């Protein structure tokens, strides 16, 4: 019975890793100059990071910490890498250390918030996000502020406080009006409240801002179907199915949309695919849990990669393979 909740958590987790990039791109904290040897290692660390060499980067960070043990950026970077490796407890310790050394270190509280959010400690997540919010409000880091507000909204939504969630998303849009994700999550809020017309309008805004995002397009298609806009919905859902062959929801809604038009024979393969994709996705959730429980186990990462390959999620499969390769045999 726990799977669905866990599934939601993992989806959120994947998203949170995405916004991390956004946040850091907007922030340049001045943390003071490190030891020259550490600076040299920092260049190496950056190069290793660009090559997706996670374990190598971690080793370099550890070396740098020997010569610059009070340099918060090293801990911060370490935390980010450990998060990618699903080593969340260690990641948390790294972010906490960064904050301990530099109480106003931009991004650290945000990541701590993410970690708390991942494991369901919603109150802690709120506290961290509000800390980050206080730190960057008034700064020029608008994308970062927008991300923090978005994530605040996410926690409120999870807690069932829809009004606060809406407020946070709208604040995020006030900071960064072209934030497609904020529109998409506003649409979800409206959908949960049964305001389908609002939801469809908001989903369309999200999709207009990020037409390459299949999740936004799926939302438009699924809501359109429920609103009876069958032709429009069919177009969107077909597009999502083509772009994301692993997308159970798109297959399901496309099948239902075709059924609603009396095209039963056309619907059949999409509905059948939903069944098998649903099973594969369930196995992916279990494989992710297995990785979380034992992130140093190469076989677990390979299992995860294999399942991603089966669903056609090439990017995710590659990421899992990168980690597996670095863990050695």
């Amino acid at each position: 019975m726990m799977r669905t909740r866990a599934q939601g958590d993992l989806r959120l987790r994947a998203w949170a890793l995405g916004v991390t990039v956004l946040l850091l791109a907007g922030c340049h904290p001045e943390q003071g100059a490190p030891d020259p040897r550490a600076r040299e290692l920092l260049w190496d660390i950056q190069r290793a990071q660009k090559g997706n060499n996670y374990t190598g980067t971690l080793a370099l960070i550890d070396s740098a910490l020997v010569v610059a043990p009070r340099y918060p950026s090293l801990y911060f970077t370490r935390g980010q890498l450990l998060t990618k490796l699903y080593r969340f407890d260690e990641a948390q310790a790294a972010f906490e250390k960064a904050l301990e050394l530099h109480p106003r270190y931009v991004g650290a509280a945000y990541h701590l918030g993410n970690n708390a959010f991942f494991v369901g400690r919603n109150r802690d997540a709120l506290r961290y996000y509000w800390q980050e919010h206080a730190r960057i409000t008034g700064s020029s880091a608008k994308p970062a502020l927008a991300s923090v507000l978005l994530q605040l909204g996410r926690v409120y939504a999870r807690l069932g406080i829809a009004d606060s969630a809406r407020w946070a998303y709208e604040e995020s849009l006030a900071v960064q009006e072209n934030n497609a994700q904020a529109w998409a999550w506003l649409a979800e809020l409206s959908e949960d409240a049964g305001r389908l017309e609002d939801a469809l309008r908001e989903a369309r805004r999200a999709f207009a801002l990020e037409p390459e995002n299949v999740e936004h397009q799926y939302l438009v298609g699924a809501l359109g179907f429920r609103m009876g806009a069958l032709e429009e919905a069919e177009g969107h859902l077909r597009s999502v199915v083509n772009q994301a062959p692993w997308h159970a929801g798109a297959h399901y809604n496309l099948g239902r949309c075709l059924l609603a038009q009396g095209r039963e024979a056309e619907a059949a393969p999409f509905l059948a695919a939903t069944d098998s994709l649903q099973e594969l996705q369930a196995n992916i959730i279990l494989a992710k849990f297995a990785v979380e429980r034992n992130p140093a186990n190469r076989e677990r990462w390979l299992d995860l990669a294999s399942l991603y390959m089966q669903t056609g999620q090439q990017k995710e499969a590659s990421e899992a393979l990168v980690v597996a390769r670095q863990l050695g045999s």
Partner: protein
Amino acid sequence: MLACVMLFLSACADPTTAPADQAAQKPATVGFTDVTAEAGLGDFRHVTGAFGEKWFPETMGSGGGFLDYDGDGLADVVLVAGGTFPSTGEEAGPALRLYRNGGEGRFVEVTEIAGLADVRAYAFGVTIADYDNDGDEDIFTTTLYENLLLRNDSGVFREIGQQAGLAGDAQWSSAAAFIDADRDGWLDIYVGNYVEWSPEKDIFCTRVAGRKAYCTPELYKGVSGRFYHNNGDGTFTDRTDARGFTDRTGKTLGVLAVDYNRDGWPDLMVANDTQRDLLYENQGDGTFVEKGLYSGIAFDENGRARAGMGVDAGVLDTTGEVTITVGHFTSEMIGVYRHAKDGFFIDRAAVSQIGRPSLRTLTFGLFLFDVDLDADLDLLAANGHITEDIELVEDGISYRQKVQLYLNNGEARFDVIEPIETRLVARGAAYGDYDGDGDLDVLVMENGGGARLWRNNLDDGRYLRVRLQGAQSNRSGIGSRLVIQTGSRRQERYVRAGMSYLSHAQTTPVFGLADAERVDSLWVYWPSGVTDRLGSLAPNQEIRVHEGMPVP
């Protein structure tokens, strides 16, 4: 801006309390009084058999319900007492405990004199009907091993599961429903099974290294349900495959008979835990075709399987179409699937306003009844988590949860209230009019705890209770559809045996009449095909309808 600031402040103060506060602030139009102790049910305790090993079955029981085992017209109560695991050597008590309604709101335990004291099993659920058409109600009980059929012989029960061919294999059964699938006048039964579990197959699950936690069903193989045909001679024959029950998914926790397409043939809804739900459509000859995926019942709106548990169905609005409701896990809305047309359902959870309040609860027991007798069906959700320390795992979710009552505005839009302050680890739930005052009272069973009987506090309200006696049809009238007309308003009830989670509600249908002075017409559509019509009925009475012999 001020509004934003206020939102900000209130959110920071204690964000997790807001939803409960919002619910509590709604004006309560109905209420209950906990009468468990004064009614004589206070000594009951469900036994999980837990002894530190965190075995999966411990978290899942149990059910119970209302019946009239002695035919005196008063609602008696049967409670499923759980059990112990044979390997522990702990002595088990009776699998079921029976309480006779002595009138004036008092029950007396009759487990022993009713022959149930020596019936031992690790039991989960009950469904009740007169399967042998001898005029009294029999009890079918699902267990962790072989199931039990308790034949009622003038108020004394005899366990004949094996002899009747209903015991089945030694596997974990959950929900069951009596259903006259081929309309031959004899009640067949569908038995839902859960997962392959035994002490030997128990899996060590953990969230904290070295410490065992309860596993989740994904890790276990599902066991599919069985269909048994009633031979009419007191025995049953397994006709699972022959009748089309070929899906092998299993992990069933809810089973419900429902004639959603109104063809007079009972269909079957099967709610599964983390697997797609099933809708078996009766082909008009007692054989079935599974249409869950095509109907829109199988998954949520995003094509994901949910943790299906309790299930019930009824007509919630003026469309006249059947809505099937399904309880789910936290972060999953209660399913509110309304039949649109041609076997196609739409989940109206969000639109109905049931969805969002149900996201924070884990709903096991769930049923539709007209709690305020205002002529529409309301929904009660009995909630409780399976993880004792869930508060540590996820803020805002609690192990013990309040029961929610969703009040229908007549158009299938609902306001939620929490009618009882007590938080429970609720599992089964059922309704019945134990005090005979016309309104429906509530029975809730708690995992590892007591049963709760809540008296409906409604002071006035008009009702019509209809007691059926089949002739060509099965004696209990299971599978009958009742329709009443009061002015321009039509209501419908379907008589069923087995609903909610592992439970059984009073078989006698009750209609709330709002302010209607009379019931203009009552139609009874019997499973035999006979239709009886009665006209101009006064409110606040129980009428008896014998098949083919309508009262003028």
